């Protein structure tokens, strides 16, 4: 038993944390948030250069990481800094699906930061159901509509799930292919997504099935949980600092016992969240990975809400203002609940898997 990071991961963590602290300031991020693109090409290139994108892939795939704890380290730091660039969707999910399909040349470009991807899976009315796919594949062309596709506008290629007869398979579609229409929009917690429709759009079968997508979703569950954890750490840290420095009725508000005890409860729950992310990363390759991942996502959803709401409440008015760091962080935390199944979705999945 050993809970220390390896030297390589410790270095990755230190490098990424330092880089983001220096470069990804609130002001820089606010510019990105209000930009038309919703992401910074410079930041993206630098993340690639720092090896952050490569850390999401195994050596076999051309990277130098790729295990659960590599993802946890990267996304915890991205979450801590409130990074809105689509590392999760474009590089991790998109890249790992291409790696699974043996598209090593494209994976190389992903790691180099020169290829952007989007995964177009969810559909209107499908909520979080994995097998709700009505997009049709027929004779090499796709027709249908995908909902809230992250990074759709910036992507060079889309990986699209579609139904060919009874089976769900994944296809590669060039963004500028015939019949692709994207209605893009910004997201509450930063970044952009879009409604994507395909109308007899030529597509390349990737030889991947729903189970490959589920494997990629498991990676995403580790990533989004770690990201939320990092954001919770920021929120807790900001709150702690605020309680220590802000005075009211002549003393720091953190010395008021009611707030002090609530702060203690946040710290206790933060430890729980940290352990849950360790479980998710550590059991990612285990036979009962699904059970652990659902446990983690459920816990992160519950504790995330608590941390976001309590952090705002203990700050008071200032936390309601957009220019204050916590506002963005709190949105990242709560909106993470809307990705890859929410608290209730994973509670149900955990119950079903526990009974199995």
């Amino acid at each position: 038993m050993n809970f220390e990071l390896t030297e390589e991961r410790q270095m990755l963590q230190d490098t990424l944390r330092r880089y983001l602290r220096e470069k990804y300031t609130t002001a820089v991020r606010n510019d990105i948030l209000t930009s038309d693109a919703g992401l910074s090409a410079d930041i993206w290139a630098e993340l690639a250069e720092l090896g952050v994108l490569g850390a999401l892939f195994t050596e076999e795939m051309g990277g130098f990481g790729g295990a659960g704890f590599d993802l946890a380290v990267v996304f915890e730091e991205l979450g801590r800094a409130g990074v809105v660039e689509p590392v999760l969707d474009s590089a991790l999910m998109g890249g790992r699906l291409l790696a699974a399909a043996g598209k090593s040349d494209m994976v190389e470009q992903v790691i180099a930061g020169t290829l952007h991807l989007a995964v177009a899976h969810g559909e209107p009315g499908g909520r979080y159901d994995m097998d709700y796919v009505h997009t049709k594949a027929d004779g090499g062309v796709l027709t249908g509509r995908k909902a809230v596709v992250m990074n759709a506008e910036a992507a060079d290629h889309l990986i699209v799930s579609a139904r060919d007869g009874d089976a769900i398979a994944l296809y590669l579609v060039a963004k500028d292919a015939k019949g692709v229409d994207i209605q893009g929009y910004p997201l509450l917690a930063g970044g952009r997504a879009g409604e994507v429709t395909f109308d007899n759009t030529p597509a390349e079968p990737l030889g991947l099935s729903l189970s490959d997508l589920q494997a990629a979703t498991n990676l995403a569950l580790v990533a989004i949980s770690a990201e939320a954890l990092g954001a919770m750490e920021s929120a807790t840290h900001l709150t702690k600092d605020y309680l220590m420095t802000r005075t009211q009725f002549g003393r720091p508000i953190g010395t008021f016992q009611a707030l002090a005890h609530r702060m203690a409860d946040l710290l206790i729950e933060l430890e729980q969240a940290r352990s849950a992310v360790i479980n998710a990363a550590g059991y990612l390759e285990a036979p009962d990975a699904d059970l652990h991942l659902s446990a983690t996502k459920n816990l992160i959803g519950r504790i995330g809400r608590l941390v976001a709401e309590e952090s705002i409440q203990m700050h008071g008015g200032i936390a309601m203002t957009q220019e204050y760091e916590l506002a963005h962080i709190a949105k990242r935390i709560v909106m993470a609940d809307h990705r890859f199944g929410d608290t209730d979705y994973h509670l149900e999945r955990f119950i079903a898997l526990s009974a199995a």
Partner: protein
Amino acid sequence: MDMSFTDDELAFQSEVREFLRDELPSEIVDKVAKGIELGKDEVERWHAILNARGWLAPNWPKSFGGGEWNAVQRHIFDTEAAAANAPRIVPFGLSMLGPVLQKFGSKEQQDHWLPRILDGSDWWCQGYSEPGAGSDLASLKTRAVRDGDHYVVNGQKTWTTLGQHANMIFCLVRTDPDVKQQEGISFLLIDMNTPGIEVRPIILLDGSDEVNEVWFTDVRVPVENLVGEENKGWTYAKYLLTHERANIAGVGFSQAGLAAVKRMARAENHNGKPLIENPHFAARVAQVDIDLRAMATSNLRIISKAAAGGAPGLEASMLKVKGSIIRQEINDLARRVAGPYAMPFASEALEGANDTIPDPLGAGPVAAQYFNNRKLSIFGGSNEIQRGIIAKVTMSGGRA
């Protein structure tokens, strides 16, 4: 014990329903239902409709042009209006300044300002909070120094809701810095068009711009705009804060919000069934529903007591805490129902201007509202302040 309305009360309820059905503009209803901010003109339109009916100032005495409704009537109106998705009445002139002027203002002030509130000539905003003061309201620093027939005001106010629409502001200012905090405060009426006033919007975390900072630099205010006596402003401020506590629980808003959640959850699919049939989601809805039913009765009990002449104090604090928790819980349910579609958002959507944001449930920007309504437990005396009041009053001998 009789939990039903009297015949008179039922008749009034019918009258209110009929009025709302006939007079409330449907464009406004659509926006309110989706939580979209109304423009100044829309608010003024609704105020004018209410004023024409004599219902704009239900809590004012008839002698000042009000409705002189009792607590039950106000409750009926508030509940029906919320259910019909009528806009909230902007309270600064009608519910806050009005009662203060009626009690503490001079005859001249009453004659001049009160009719202008009713006919919409003035849009008032509130200059109470200051940066860094938080719940410690009496620590305010904005100074007013007498100079001949004027006060010269310097300082800064914050959290000034809808200040961008206002032409008048009522302010707490410090007129004597050398006495105990509460004793050197005065209550001034200030024209927002006076030179030296600057209004800057505060963008909230959902992108909305309804609150503002107001800066005062050598702003000259005529002495006749002092309400009551100099240095007695804290008394008037407390009167204002404790006076208008009707609808503090927001029962009607919660009922309307919960109905919307149920409607959306019937339309939303979850694993091939309506989400409302999912036991875990249904349990969340049911628990809020149950809590809300109990709180609605608490609210009626207090209203009934107020109508009988009682003075609810402690109960108002209790209702504010529970009411905010329930409303926030309903906001949380709304964002859950929306699933992945809770994520898309542009702040322009708050003004209804953005048609590119998908909204399949017709829910409006539910996640933004979830964040915006965190304010319910912070502003107007945070829940922590309320808990402190409850504990203090109770443990100093109030009833348990």
